[in-house]
């Protein structure tokens, strides 16, 4: 397989470095333009198993608001995002909810838990 050059933008932090990634298929050869080591990890991930953090909301009964925001404890494979959102639509919690509470364990068998991102007291 021939060497290829792909331009990527690292989204690991707000700096947003433009990475010039040399690779052969899914094999990383070198990364340029990264301001820190995490840029290399990001490039590697994008080539082999691109992942994203996902944030959304789930329904809550008996809370001060009808929803509680949730997030993936770690990034999940990008192709699973919409499946995960469909899973989350089925969840309904009972208030009160605590920040960090596990809302969905081992979501879609990824090994990643979904956590509540705030306290939601019971109320009207």
């Amino acid at each position, binding site marked *: 397989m021939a060497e290829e050059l792909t331009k990527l933008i690292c989204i690991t932090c707000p700096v947003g470095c433009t990475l010039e990634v040399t690779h052969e298929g899914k094999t990383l050869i070198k990364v340029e333009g990264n301001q820190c080591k995490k840029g290399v990890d990001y490039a590697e991930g994008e080539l082999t198993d691109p992942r*994203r953090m996902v944030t959304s909301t789930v329904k809550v009964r008996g809370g001060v608001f009808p929803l509680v925001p949730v997030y993936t404890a770690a990034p999940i494979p990008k192709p699973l995002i919409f499946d995960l959102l469909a899973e989350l639509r089925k969840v309904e919690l009972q208030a009160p909810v605590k920040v960090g509470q596990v809302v969905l364990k081992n979501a879609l068998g990824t090994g990643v838990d979904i956590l509540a991102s705030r306290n939601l007291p019971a109320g009207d």
Partner: protein
Amino acid sequence: MLKQKYDVIVIGSGPAGLAAAIEAKKTGAEDVLIIERAKELGGILQQCIHNGFGVEILKQDLPGPAYAQRFIDEAEQLGVEVLLDAMVLDISPARHIYAISKWSGFAELDARAIVLSMGCRERTRAQIRIPGTRPAGVYTAGTAQRFVNIEGFMPGKRFVILGSGDIGMIMARRLTFEGAKVERVLEIMPFLTGLIRNYVQCLLDFNIPLQLRHTVSRIIGNSRVEAVEAVQVDDKWQPIPGTEEIIPCDTLLLSVGLIPENELSRKAGVALDPVTGGPYVDEGMQTSVPGIFAAGNVVHVYDLVDWVTEAGFRAGRSAAKFALAERKRAARQVKLQPGDNIRYIVPHVMDKESLAEADQRLQMRVIQPIEDKVWVEVLDGDNLVTRKSQRYVRPGEMVTVDIPQKAYDAVQKADTLTVRVVRR
């Protein structure tokens, strides 16, 4: 129970206000109060459910509400008092605060120091002047964010977003997650105005098209938005004829900038920089009015919450130091209060230490004439500090009494000295 006077009163409970209150406590301020017009603490972060907060300060990538929760918990542990659902209406330069609350009604409070942290508000359609009808279905991106993330209500099904700021791009992804179709993001500038990472993870990942050098030239629809007309602009932001395109949609979101919220600052007499739209501040975040500090988006619009928190810490520390100095000054002073038959006394307050150097003369006028021998007495409660005898007193003739140096110890114990005239 609300106190009448606080060392530090913080207005607004976003990351700036929370940090200021926390740091004020840690610096030694005893009574610290946060006044917040919303029903809960946290400010705008409560609706920013996406991650990306705290990477710098907490070395952790958290959603907005989780970031806020850290600081809410810390404020609570430190004993910061909170008044929720209360809107501050006015502040005087002497740091008198007027607030209205659904629960406790009208409240008047005094602060030795104030931290302004009211955040910012979004620019609206009126401020960018889009022609066309005024149908329902035009929202600012932040308003839509609140609907979708907190209140659980989708404002539409097919969206066009004007402006490539972070809030707009983040909402493009959020709406896509909730099953809506985002037709287009339009940006009048020749470059992205938000962070490039948001372009990648919010637009590119979901194939949402972005058009630079484009704007909305017209809104179409009677009772509800039916479409918008997009147009390309030239270097002078003028529409280029012939580039118009009708994009069918039912909702237009505006993500066209934020303006620091400085109504209150203006009322307090705080000088504002016309460029940032926020107060002029010194290195300790003090505004042009002594004892009034400011931090966060009220000063200038930040794109990273970590720096907002950092500015809040700085403002809280300075405010506490100011308040403590005020307390010391007040502790050194004794009030001089007119008692029986006295109309006024000058001076009104006296530094207790002044007796270490010399006797202190008080000048006053009486209310009623007494054509008899009288005592002019200076008292701390029931304890006589000093007195002098006089043959008569008349309103037309100024009366004086000296507090002698030997009263130094007695005066140190007093908060207030009362002066009265009584018959012998």
